[in-house]
């Protein structure tokens, strides 16, 4: 007879998930799973809609990273009107990049300050009432205020180009529908109404210093917690530098060997396949040539920094070099370094936003271009949580007939399960009892990937929060529940 522990859902992730740990009669772990059982809807829901509605409709599957879905869908729909990324006008490309950098900046701020910082500031043993942003606000007021201001800055960028902070619209097939004004630029440069971009850069650097100090004091924990070998997948530009908006797909194995050599994103389906498991609605993407067991990859900030040759902004590149120096320029496979990597990307985004704000092409009027229509399109973008793929097909009337969304958290599905298994095997399995701290460490591992479960399952609606432990004969001995 076995005992089942359920952590349902994981706290402070975007959307809701569920973890079950199956123990045998001796209290040893038999297996564990990170379940995603939310209702999938959007891939089917969008069929029959006009192709041009995709960037507007699909972003509604998430209230946290709608910009990423908006832009990934837009890139796919561009192709359906015959426009590849290189064919977009410079103004349209730069406005989309500005929006994307604002999105990544605000999303990373949300994750680091609101979701991850309680784990770092208070430790995994902190009581549950302390592991939240309210406690951070009370005990680390300056950090909390900066976090709010940084997230607000990113959201204001989005609002400026898309009309509103959430579910706004910038992209249209083949371009964008509005340009940028001098007044909008001044709003972000002069610091009169909100903190300016230079402050965002300075604060981003300060956050990296905070993280380096934390690393100095907690290196063993960061190095060892949920450390496991895996592939890493992300997008790079033609020179191998980090590119969050457009580029080629690169994957490396846990030793840094190239497993996918900078392929055009259009060829995604030639190289990747997706597996399904009966216990999760979330797909399991993998590289075909390596197979289901060995072909999965992590995505997101840690993967992107592991696989890029450089970051194309100077301060972030300097921070990257310091980061990789800790592992002797070898691939970093330690889950918690994701937090540090995320802060480096925030700095990169802030620098990139500043460059764009000073670029007069941002205020051009060449907004939309047209080409020869195609019946399918694929758009890939590096969303805050990792590689995001939108693929659409349409009929001759322009109605969508097929949609496939492979979101960042889906790409991290195996990594999430492996991270949970690491904690279960290394923290829970060796102990006689299961404490709140142990369960929190499972959540800490999951949170490091900043999973967006509503995106991953394209869910509509909400799920309750529940934690359960069953004894060996199926009796409920532990329960945690929240609406």
């Amino acid at each position, binding site marked *: 007879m076995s005992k089942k522990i359920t952590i349902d*859902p994981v*706290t*402070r*992730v*975007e959307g*809701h998930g569920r973890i079950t740990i199956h123990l045998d009669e001796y209290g040893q772990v038999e297996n564990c799973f990170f379940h995603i059982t939310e209702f999938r809807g959007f891939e089917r829901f969008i069929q029959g809609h006009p192709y041009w509605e995709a960037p507007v409709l699909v972003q*509604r599957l998430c*209230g*946290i990273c709608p910009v990423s879905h908006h832009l990934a869908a837009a890139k796919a729909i561009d192709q359906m009107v015959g426009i590849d990324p290189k064919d977009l006008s410079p103004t349209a490309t730069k406005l989309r990049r500005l929006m994307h950098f604002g999105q990544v900046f605000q999303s990373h701020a*949300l994750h680091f300050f*609101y*979701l991850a910082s309680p784990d770092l500031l208070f430790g995994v043993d902190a009581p*549950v*009432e302390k*592991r*939240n*942003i*309210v*406690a951070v*606000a*009370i005990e680390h*007021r300056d950090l*909390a*205020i900066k*976090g*709010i*201001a940084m*997230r*607000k800055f990113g*959201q204001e960028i989005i609002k400026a180009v898309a009309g509103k902070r*959430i*579910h706004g619209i910038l992209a249209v097939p083949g371009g964008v529908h509005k340009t940028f004004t001098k007044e909008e630029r001044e709003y972000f440069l002069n*610091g*009169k*109404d*909100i*903190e300016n971009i230079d402050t965002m850069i300075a604060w981003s650097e300060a956050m990296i210093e905070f993280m380096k100090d934390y690393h100095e004091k907690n290196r063993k924990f960061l190095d060892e917690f949920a450390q496991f070998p895996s592939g890493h997948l992300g997008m790079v530009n033609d020179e191998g530098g980090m590119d969050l908006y457009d580029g080629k797909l690169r994957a490396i194995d846990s030793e840094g060997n190239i497993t996918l050599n900078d392929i055009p994103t259009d060829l995604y389906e030639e190289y990747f396949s997706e597996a399904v498991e009966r216990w999760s609605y979330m797909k399991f993407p993998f590289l075909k040539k390596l197979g289901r067991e060995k072909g999965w990859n992590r995505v997101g900030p840690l993967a992107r920094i592991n696989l890029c040759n450089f970051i194309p902004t100077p301060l972030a590149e300097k921070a990257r070099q310091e980061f990789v120096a800790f592992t002797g320029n070898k691939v970093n496979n330690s889950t918690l370094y994701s937090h540090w990597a995320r802060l480096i990307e925030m700095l990169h985004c802030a620098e990139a936003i500043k460059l764009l704000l000073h670029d007069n092409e941002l205020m051009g009027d060449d907004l939309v271009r047209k080409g020869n229509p195609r019946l399918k399109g694929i758009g890939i973008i590096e969303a805050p949580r990792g590689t995001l793929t939108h693929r659409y097909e349409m009929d001759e009337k322009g109605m969508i007939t097929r949609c496939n969304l492979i979101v960042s958290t889906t790409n991290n599905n195996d990594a999430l399960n492996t991270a949970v298994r690491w904690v279960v095997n290394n923290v829970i399995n060796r102990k006689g009892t299961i404490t709140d701290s142990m369960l929190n460490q499972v959540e800490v591992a999951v949170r490091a990937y900043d999973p967006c479960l509503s995106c991953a399952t394209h869910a*509509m609606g909400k799920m309750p*929060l529940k934690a359960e432990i069953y004894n060996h004969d199926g009796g409920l001995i532990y329960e945690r529940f*929240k609406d």
Partner: protein
Amino acid sequence: MKDLKIKSTILLIGIGNSGRGDDGLGWKFVETIDGQGYDFLDYEFRYQLQVEDAALITNYDVVIFVDASHDKLSGGFEFRRCISASHSFFSTHAQAPGAIVHLANNLYNKFPKAYTLAISGRSWELETSLSEEAENNLQAALSFFTEQFLPTAVPQLVFSH
């Protein structure tokens, strides 16, 4: 930190999803009031409250969070003071009104009068219209707000300034 310009004294925040039937009650209420042309009111729309809304509400004397409710409320709605509350969150990207007030108090040392206006809904499916029951409850809430709350609240605010 810089403060945003104070434009009005009362902020209405509609919370919900207008694509999910009666979950659009909060937005519909705020849109309706917005259409009546009160120049001392400001309006915001949210799918979820987020931590940064704490900074926003510090610019107002009064903030009213308007949201749909699953509960069958007496008279179709409930208007009450929103008490500062330090919750333990499982999912901190979505904050409760009390937590927003708590953060405004503790982070910014600002103490706006906060209220919640909950309006009963019945249908939460994928649609953009309100149920008949929700429409009736919305009208009751609107009548209360325009005929009872504003006539008493606004003179106090003007006097205090």
